[in-house]
Structures are given as structure tokens and as C-alpha cells.
């Protein structure tokens, strides 16, 4: 099962992961990653904007590519948009597979591509001021691991 969603409200990753797990009887293992908004550096809020005609199709294509490449039983990709407070989940990726290694690699792959290639623009509020976030060089280095 490929399940890809953009979520505009705060979500509980465990609920989605639980339902996703239950949808794959016979799986060997499920690997999940949940990223949260960090409050370090005085961040008061984070806002993610996206471009609907590209963002969701891009995530769906990534899910399909990861599923094919790693031979998954299923993959779940959830991403928040809009304004979030520190501590709120922003992204959740789960991969279900008969093999542990494939599940790990698929989530790792999907996260690297989400971080660097997905159509999101981020800004964070510090001391009441919004600041746009530029891509990090690390994200590109992570991505090159899969070439």
C-alpha cells in the first residue's frame, strides 16, 4: 500500500503507523522515522508552504520509486504544511517489508529525498520575526549517497 498525505493539522504519528502496520499482515518488519519541529536557536514557530500541483505528486512519485527500488510491501509518507510549534511532528515515513534492511534503507532514502528535493519552503519565527530557511549543504551530501 502506498499512502501519501499532506496534513494541515497536527497529527499523531502512532495512529497512522498503527493503521499502516495493520494493513500489511505478513510483514517482517516496519521501519519508521518521525521528525519534529526543533525549538533550538530560539525558534518559536515554523511554517511550511508548498505548491499543491507539484508537492503531492512529487511525494507520490518518491513513494513509488522507493517502493520499487527496495521491494516494499508498503510505504507511508506524511508531511505537515502550515504553521507548527516546536515539538510538533512535521514528517513521518514508514516502510513495511519482509526484510529489515529494505525497510531501513527505504525510509532513509525517502527522508533524504524529502529533505532535499520536495517542494516545500520553510520559514521560522525567531524573536517575533520570520526568516526563510535556505537548503543545507548536508541535505545534498545525504542525497548523493543514493546515486
Amino acid at each position, binding site marked *: 500500500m502506498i499512502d501519501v498525505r499532506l496534513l494541515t493539522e497536527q497529527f499523531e504519528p502512532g495512529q497512522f503507523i498503527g493503521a499502516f502496520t495493520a494493513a500489511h499482515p505478513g510483514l517482517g518488519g516496519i521501519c519508521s522515522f518521525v521528525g519534529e519541529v526543533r525549538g533550538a536557536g530560539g525558534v518559536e514557530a515554523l511554517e*511550511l508552504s508548498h*505548491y499543491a*500541483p*507539484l508537492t503531492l505528486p512529487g511525494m507520490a512519485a518518491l513513494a513509488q520509486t522507493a517502493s520499487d527500488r527496495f521491494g516494499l510491501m508498503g510505504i507511508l509518507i506524511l508531511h505537515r504544511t502550515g504553521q507548527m510549534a516546536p515539538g510538533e511532528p512535521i514528517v513521518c515515513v514508514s516502510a513495511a517489508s519482509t526484510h529489515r534492511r529494505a525497510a531501513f534503507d527505504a525510509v532513509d532514502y525517502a527522508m533524504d529525498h524529502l*529533505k532535499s*528535493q*520536495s517542494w516545500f*519552503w520553510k520559514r521560522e519565527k525567531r524573536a517575533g520575526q520570520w526568516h*526563510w530557511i535556505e*537548503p543545507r549543504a548536508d541535505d545534498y551530501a545525504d542525497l548523493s549517497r543514493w546515486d
Partner: protein
Amino acid sequence: MAAKLVFLGRLADIAGMTERAVATGPLETILADLPPELAVALLGERIRLALNGELLVSHGGIVLGEGDELAFLPPVSGG
């Protein structure tokens, strides 16, 4: 006889809006009617364009017709 420009990320700040209705026609003509600071930002080297949801490989010779939507996409900051 209207098309739409969509501004993402910091371009929305510069434009002061997230989208703007414009007259149809060649992109150069449309940009010439915008505030110069915005036009310069939209033409930035790292800005990608998507026409009606499809990324453009080449940025030359764009002409917007009725109902077309042209999005200006600065470098993404990731998920």
C-alpha cells in the same frame, strides 16, 4: 483574458502576495509591468518555473494564455 502568477517562498514576501492575476501575453511583457525589484527576483538564476503544474526545462519564449498558471519556485528548503 487573464493568467496567474504564483510566488513561492521568499518570492511571496517580495511580491507582497502569493499570487497575482496578470494579462495574457509574452512573459517579458508581463514582467515589465511588475515592480522592478520583483521582476529581478523572479528572473533569478536559481528560480525554477512551472507552467500549469509542469516544471519547465527551458525558460525562453513563454507566452501565457487564458487561464494559464505560472509558478516561480525558489530553491526548496526541504521537508
